């Protein structure tokens, strides 16, 4: 079966998941993003690539950072951006997802950026829209968040230059994390040889080893000698049932403190997709410390989203 993200010429038509994307596609996105970094340092922080195109931000789930950076990215490409916060609108009146999309298509949408709490929502829309319309998944349930995975590998490449020989530790609530899944796929595609997931049994998906990662329940053992530490948000709003004793207990075992970080390499970088729970998964002195690249991640995210939008729109 053809990858639903690729068009008949094998070019990227939609960005739904990193899983199954060839290495060249990922590298092309990262290289293009590097060229967009400089655009934001000019007097006019815009390029005319998407002039006359309409980008609809369809957010069925709350988001500040992702929605804002997508909006900025589209505006820096000169597109017209329409933000829809659907939780407060049609769906509460009973309209189905595809009816909403059809109505927006009738308003001549060229691109949809979709966030939804159900896994597969962006796929559903991508299969439904006309062939000139592009869909970007901005997070679907527990499944994927490909632009976050891309900005994570952009950040890692920026600071570490290369993926060969790199040890990356992903810590915390992997079970509920679409960010972790997208990042693992990106890292293995780019050939990172040592990807570790660290967390309590209750917050690691069963069979996660099959993604090509090693599993650790002891954070000290898992962090030893690693180059990159990716802390995940403890997704308390997604947690149903007693998966955890308490946030304090979690911090004791899996919170990133200066003492635990000292076990990683001296030049290790610390990443977090945001929003952070200070004192739950990360100590403030680490979040604001010299190893932290959490704010550069946000800045890089704009360039990466510009790259994805312009590559899709040109295919």
């Amino acid at each position: 079966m053809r990858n639903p993200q690729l068009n008949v010429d094998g070019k990227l038509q939609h960005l739904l998941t990193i899983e199954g994307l060839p290495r060249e596609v990922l590298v092309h996105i990262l290289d293009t993003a590097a060229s967009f970094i400089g655009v934001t340092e000019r007097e006019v922080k815009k390029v005319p690539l998407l002039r006359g195109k309409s980008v609809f931000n369809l957010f069925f789930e709350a988001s500040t950072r992702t929605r804002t950076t997508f909006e900025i990215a589209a505006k820096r490409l000169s597109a017209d951006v329409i933000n829809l916060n659907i939780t407060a609108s049609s769906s509460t009146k009973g309209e189905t997802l595809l009816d909403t999309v059809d109505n927006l298509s009738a308003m001549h949408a060229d691109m949809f950026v979709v966030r939804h709490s159900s896994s597969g929502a962006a796929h559903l829309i991508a299969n439904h829209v006309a062939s000139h319309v592009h869909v970007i998944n901005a997070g679907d349930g527990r499944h994927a968040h490909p632009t976050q995975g891309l900005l994570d590998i952009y950040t890692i490449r920026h600071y570490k230059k290369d993926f060969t020989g790199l040890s990356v530790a992903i810590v915390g609530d992997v079970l509920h994390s679409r960010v972790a899944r997208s990042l693992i796929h990106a890292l293995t595609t780019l050939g990172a040889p040592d990807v570790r997931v660290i967390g309590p049994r209750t917050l690691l998906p069963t069979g996660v080893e099959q993604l090509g990662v090693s599993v650790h329940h002891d954070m000290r053992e898992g962090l030893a000698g690693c180059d990159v530490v990716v802390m995940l948000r403890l997704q308390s709003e997604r947690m149903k049932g007693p998966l955890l004793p308490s946030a304090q207990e979690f911090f004791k075992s899996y919170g990133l403190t200066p003492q635990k970080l000292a076990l990683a390499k001296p030049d290790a970088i610390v990443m977090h997709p945001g929003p952070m729970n200070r004192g739950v998964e990360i100590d403030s002195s680490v979040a604001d410390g010299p190893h932290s690249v959490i704010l550069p991640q946000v800045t890089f995210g704009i360039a990466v989203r510009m790259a994805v939008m312009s590559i899709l729109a040109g295919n």
Partner: protein
Amino acid sequence: MDLPDAEALCEELARKLRAGATESTGLVGIRTGGAWLAERLHRELKLSTPMGALDISFYRDDFDVAGLHHQVKPSQIPFDVNGRHIVVIDDVLYTGRTVRAAMNELFDYGRPGKIELAALVDRGERQLPIAAQYVGATLSVPAGKLLRLARDERGKFFLRLYDAKPAA
């Protein structure tokens, strides 16, 4: 067809440019061939203002047809363009569309005082009202062929003729 010696044309271009450029002139090469040329001219003219390079991929007028170029490199303009005399440099001047895109990009850095254009080869067939002030040679090239500057492993320039890809 016989192609002229690119090294000789480059010398000719440097000679002409020397008369028009001052210490504060900013040379801006269009990637890839124009940037190589700007590098060489910048060295030979011993200008104190650092040279710039533009990748016009984000400003092309055929984005809807051709999509994004596969190997985009960052543009670099290491000087203040406001009020400055700038010479845009390209290897081959043809339709003029590349130069238009380059001028649009330059204006996103500020308001230049004056922009001039230098090209190693002017092959005519303009589709826009654009002319070069400094030209190495004018040359007529058959339609459907692309003329480009190339470099050998020692950095020596030569011209190459390609078959243009059929329009998508």
